[in-house]
């Protein structure tokens, strides 16, 4: 079942039905999550075509594209017709994809296979390509329709979700259907609560004053912040207050941070469900006040020195064949003395060391 953009989808189908060698390629334009990619995949499915897809995750330089598409055959080994789908072409204009745009512009003029491109925006560098293509615009889906759709999914999955929660999701999504479905799923696994009530300060204060671990978990779960922010604020509060059992709590925090690092690296977001428990263990049942600044304020006051030290470290590093750690730990202090003694003149450094 697909949502919205009926006439655009009909145009897509008409285009493929009429396609013959020499026909114009198809260019889909529209905001994220309105069904461009899905429309193409469904169409290919209906016509038993094989989709050869390249998106922003692939290297798309001129040479790479020529290698992949230059001699592409119209039919694959299974006898299916091949459809080339270049998704996210508005992401092409970067150094990493040098010459990609020019190649596509040439390629679409002489292709023996149907080509579809998709983009969120009509970027300037795409002008030439767009001129040679049949353009179909996909529009945002009305909020009301998305809510109905989410309700349908929820009932299929046996989930009961309040209406206002669904409306909240759609509102915050900018009518991006994919985002809404992800959020709905997140609700179900308990990882993210979009219908949340607690700000950073409320969530942390309530978690600290929770005598029971379960209550702390409850507040951290309903804390409206991304995991990155949660770890950082819990750390700031914990280190600022220094409760008597700090070592034990610090260990839980370090575990949570380790987990977060692993999730970010592996993109295994399912692991996120454990994070809130660890943070709750670090926070629950503790005397203290909310604090969100990880860097102690005495150090923040000296932050103007940071750039000066970075400058000397870089300069010395370029001249001395050794690692940055040695430069920062041993050579920079020596340089400071040389400046202090007037052997080397450097006013910025003089200001830093107060000489």
């Amino acid at each position, binding site marked *: 079942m697909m949502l919205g953009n009926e006439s655009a989808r009909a145009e897509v189908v008409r285009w493929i039905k009429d396609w013959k060698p020499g026909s114009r390629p198809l260019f889909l334009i529209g905001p994220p999550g309105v069904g461009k990619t899905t429309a193409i995949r469904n169409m290919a499915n209906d016509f038993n075509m094989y989709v050869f897809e390249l998106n922003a995750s692939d290297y798309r330089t001129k040479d790479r594209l020529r290698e992949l598409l230059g001699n592409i055959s119209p039919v694959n080994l299974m006898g299916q017709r091949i459809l080339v789908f270049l998704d996210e072409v508005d992401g092409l204009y970067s150094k990493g994809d040098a010459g990609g745009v020019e190649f596509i512009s040439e390629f679409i003029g002489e292709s023996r296979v149907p080509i579809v491109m998709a983009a969120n925006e009509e970027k300037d560098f795409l002008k030439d390509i767009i001129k040679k293509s049949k353009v179909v615009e996909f529009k945002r889906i009305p909020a009301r329709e998305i809510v109905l759709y989410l309700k349908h999914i929820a009932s299929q999955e046996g989930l009961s979700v309040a209406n206002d929660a669904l409306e909240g999701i759609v509102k915050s999504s900018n009518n991006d259907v994919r985002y809404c479905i992800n959020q709905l799923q997140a609700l179900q696994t308990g990882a993210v609560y979009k219908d949340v009530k607690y700000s950073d300060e409320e969530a942390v204060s309530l978690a600290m004053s929770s005598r029971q671990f379960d209550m702390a978990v409850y507040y951290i779960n309903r804390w409206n912040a991304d995991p990155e922010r949660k770890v950082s604020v819990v750390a700031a509060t914990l*280190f600022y207050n220094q409760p008597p059992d700090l070592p034990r709590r610090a260990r839980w925090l370090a575990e949570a941070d380790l987990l977060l690092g692993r999730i970010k690296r592996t993109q295994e977001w399912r692991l996120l469900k454990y994070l809130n428990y660890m943070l709750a263990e670090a926070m629950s049942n503790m005397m203290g006040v909310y604090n969100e600044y990880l860097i*102690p304020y005495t150090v923040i006051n000296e932050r103007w020195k940071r750039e000066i030290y970075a400058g000397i470290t870089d300069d010395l590093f370029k001249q001395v064949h050794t690692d940055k750690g040695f430069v*920062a730990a041993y050579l920079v202090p020596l340089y400071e003395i040389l400046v202090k003694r007037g052997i080397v003149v450097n006013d910025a450094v003089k200001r830093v060391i107060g000489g």
Partner: protein
Amino acid sequence: MSSEIMWVEKYRPQTFSEVANQVEIVERLKGFAKNPLEMPHLLFAGPPGTGKTTIAFVLAREILGENWRSYTLELNASDTRGIDTVRTTIKNFTRFVDKTSGIPYRIIILDEADEMTSDAQTAMRRIMEESSTNARFILIANVSSNIIEPIQSRCAIFRFKRLDEDSVVKRLNEICKKEGVKCREDALKFIYQVTEGDMRKAINQLQMAATLGEVTVENVKTSMAMTRENDVKQMIELALSGDYRKARELLYKLLFIYGLPEEDVLRLMFTGVMGRNDVDTAAASRLFSEYDYRLIQGAHPDIQLSALLAELQSIKAK
């Protein structure tokens, strides 16, 4: 600012005859300098400040001549050296050699090669094999076991030893003479003791002390208090005595103001902790091994180090 100001660079030996130590290694390398085509890829392993980088440069100069810099690629841990660098920068550098220039091959010096990921190392092994007509690698590592086996087997391994007191003191003496600095023999011996056979640190400490006047034990001690190593020691003292707030301020000063790499702070902390007699060293090694791992794998290195600082309390000797 010129590198001549920094003695560690000013007094870096430029030729084999100036290299005062690692006699056996130098002798073997001289042979390669005479017959460059017989030289395999090399792996220099050994503790810091024992001459690995210096000797690699000397060798490159001997083999490539005057314009050696144009034919040498030097990369250390502070450069990005992920798999991308291997596939692009290194691969391109080894692609051809300028035969008209009269050099036998190009040389790639990879400092701290043991800090490269095993992915990057794996990507390198084919390049090492296929480029042997165009290039030689000199890999430099503190611990050779962190270099993956297939690479070790493609290299001649040279193990650098910690420098002995005589050769370090002799070198420091020479430098003092050239600089016209007065020094006491006991002060130079003291520098050797505190820098544990690391020539780079020793020369740097000598220069710091010399800026205070005559090089005496007293001045060496005063100058030692000025390095960040000393800040780290102070931070540990504060953390163990229960002044966590001050300890953490110092930590952020080191990271955020002075710009020390997090791994270096961890390493200095470990050395500092192990040098004390009021901690359980077995417990300390376990604690640091955990945090070493977390520092690399976690999301926020500064949070990890703050947590480690908080946990130091738990390794006090009973």
